[in-house]
């Protein structure tokens, strides 16, 4: 495990024997395809743990199942297999339990335009969240707390923002308001599903720096979902690489990105634009990607689901599913690691506490949005 000493200044939290705040184990989410009879294996065996003061990234191409995991963590979908644990205990569903859960686990949406009510002033948007969760009552206390929240997300002086509408703010400012709202009830976990993908590049870093500061100063556990692996390297302590519903590689962010083991992780990294490979640098990238199509997740795979796209596939890859090969705090689900002396095979994870839910996940129509509004 490499420790960062650079300006990213991330302490690698020592969590070996700490219980994660939030965890999914062997998660399976099989959904009914819209209108069809086929089952979509959106998530097909994924484990992930979020620890206080730590940023965990989940990266992978679109359709790999990242948002589905976020939806399980925010109780929109019930797992069809595997378990969801909060403080080590299985999560309970139902109105009361969920309300308590949401005061600790908050989701930040990708689109700050859609997630804020354009007709309401900032003071109302934040004040409402405070009242609903009974964090503050009475106009004075609420206003003081609203200003405090604005300060937390660097919208200062807060007085110049309270009377504004989301529509007269920039995308970055709106995303900060959305973050401020999620912080209203002092949550322990922030789930950020591509929080900067709708923002201009020039202001993305500001939002990432804000998340970084919040986890440092408030010991938040953050799940950072992105398809931008460079931003995951910048922000996260740990990174999980997802492909076709499975986490195919995980470990210390710097370690995984500097020295990727799984062929998919390698493809993802070599495909990402890198300014250091500028034209004329002599390091121009020459990647031959013959197939970039996502897998069909309506069929069950006997072998490795990356096999059809894998440039180094072995004969057994199409017939035998690779187990996790582990080395220290990182792991890769690839047969190629079998011969790597620093990696050793794990015994298949004990299929921990299955939730015993039905065959299909709760349809999204029942609970599409998790926000303060849904907890009223």
């Amino acid at each position, binding site marked *: 495990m490499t420790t960062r000493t650079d300006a990213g200044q991330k302490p690698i939290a020592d969590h070996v024997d700490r219980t994660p705040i939030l965890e999914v184990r062997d998660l399976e989410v099989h959904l009914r395809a819209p209108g069809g009879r086929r089952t979509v294996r959106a998530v097909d065996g994924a484990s992930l743990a979020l620890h206080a003061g730590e940023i965990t990234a989940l990266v992978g191409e679109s359709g790999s199942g990242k948002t589905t995991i976020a939806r399980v963590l925010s109780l929109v979908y019930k797992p069809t297999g595997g378990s969801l644990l909060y403080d080590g205990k299985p999560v309970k569903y139902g109105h009361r339990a969920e309300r308590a859960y949401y005061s600790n686990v908050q989701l930040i949406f990708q689109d700050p335009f859609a997630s804020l009510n354009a007709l309401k002033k900032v003071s109302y948007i934040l004040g409402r969240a405070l009242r609903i969760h009974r964090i503050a009552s009475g106009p004075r206390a609420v206003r003081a707390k609203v200003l405090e929240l604005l300060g937390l997300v660097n919208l200062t002086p807060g007085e110049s923002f309270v009377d504004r509408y989301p529509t007269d703010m*920039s995308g970055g400012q709106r995303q900060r308001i959305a973050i401020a709202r999620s912080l209203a009830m002092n949550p322990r976990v922030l789930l950020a599903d591509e929080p900067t993908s709708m923002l201009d590049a020039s202001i993305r*870093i500001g939002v990432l720096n804000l998340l970084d500061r919040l986890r440092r100063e408030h010991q938040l556990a953050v799940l950072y979902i992105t398809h931008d692996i*460079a931003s995951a390297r910048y922000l996260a302590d740990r990174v999980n690489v997802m492909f076709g519903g499975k986490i195919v590689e995980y470990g210390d962010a710097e370690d995984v990105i500097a020295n990727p083991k799984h062929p998919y992780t390698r493809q993802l990294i070599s495909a990402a634009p890198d300014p250091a490979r500028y034209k004329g640098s002599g390091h121009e990238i020459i990647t031959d990607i013959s197939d970039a199509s996502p897998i069909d997740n309506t069929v069950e795979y006997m072998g490795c689901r990356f096999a059809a796209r894998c440039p180094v596939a072995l004969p057994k890859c199409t017939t035998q599913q690779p187990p996790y090969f582990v080395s220290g705090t990182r792991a890769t689900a690839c047969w190629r690691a079998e011969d790597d002396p620093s990696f050793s095979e794990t015994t298949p994870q004990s299929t921990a506490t299955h939730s015993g839910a039905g065959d299909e996940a709760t349809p999204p129509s029942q609970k599409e949005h998790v926000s303060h509004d849904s907890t009223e």
Partner: protein
Amino acid sequence: MTTMTEAESTESRSETPHEAPTRRPLLEVRGLCVDYITERGNVRACDDITLTLHRGEILGIAGESASGKSTLLAALGRLQRPPAVTSAGSVLLHHEIGSAAVDLAQLSENELAAYRWVDISIVMQSAMACLNPVMRLGSQFTDVIREHMPAVGKGEARERAAELLQMVGIPSHRLDAYPHELSGGMQQRALIALSLACEPQLVLMDEPTTAVDVVMQRQILTQILRLQERLGFAIAFVTHDLSLLLEISDQIAIMYGGKIVEIGTAEQLYRAPRHPYTQGLRQAFPPLSEPVRRLSGIPGSPPDLLNLPRGCAFAPRCPKRIARCDTELPPLLEVPGGKVACHLSTPENPNGAIGATAHTPQEQEGSDGYEVMAAEELAHDVKEGDAA
């Protein structure tokens, strides 16, 4: 407009010495202005644009949203629609080597039709918006080819369509498919193939890969570069992703508030961006292979084109501004390896804005501290690529 004349007079000598002598201009844009006539007033989305695009080269155009990138790209091919109007300037197309250039800005719609597809074609971000949903792919190709290259027979047009599709990795039996039967990435590649149907010399690409995944993006970019090598067309490529442009462009134009604020080679913009806005943009993308350092992005918001500051449009966000910046518009001046519009950069001291001390930016929104990249820091060694 002294600056424009200056730029014009030196243009023919502007090529930096290391460049091959065979560099020939294809499109020369001079003082181009494009306005949108709206109820709120005239929005000048492109203001006094001067640049030269050479044969077979890639010109990258970067900037944040609403900076005028798409407007400029469309104007390069006179492809803009009302309410956009070209209100000043010229777009000289040297469509044949040695022959006189035509000024696209002076042509009527009918006259322009002769150059579309054959000399200049465009690829947009949304393939579905450009492909005809009720027409098989093959017919869309043959229609375009037969309309613009009357000498080509039907069979030959179809053969050409099949060949073009194969060049972007789409099997030729897909000629019979409707656009919606293709995946998003395939649609985008089909559109690129279609743009090449009449062997244009210039392909305008407006964020052609923004909607696809990074792996797909790489596949498409590799194919574009390969096609370009084989067919020799030039590309003007618009994206907000400066990292991507650094990888593919011979020349990059940085837009801010409807103006070009810096033009330079990929190397120049990577090693020593001169305009504080370009410096900010370079700071906005976390590195993939270099050491991670704390970045700051660019606090503040882009300017309102209907209410631009009197001086430099970047002044309200600029950490290096000086008194002059609020009142005087900095002209785009020729400097070695490019052009830059900043009071701190002069032909005598082109790197004036690189070492300049940063102040606190005026706008505090989202400011997590503004750290300045010094030239030495920028010129650090490039780590050996380890992509397998």
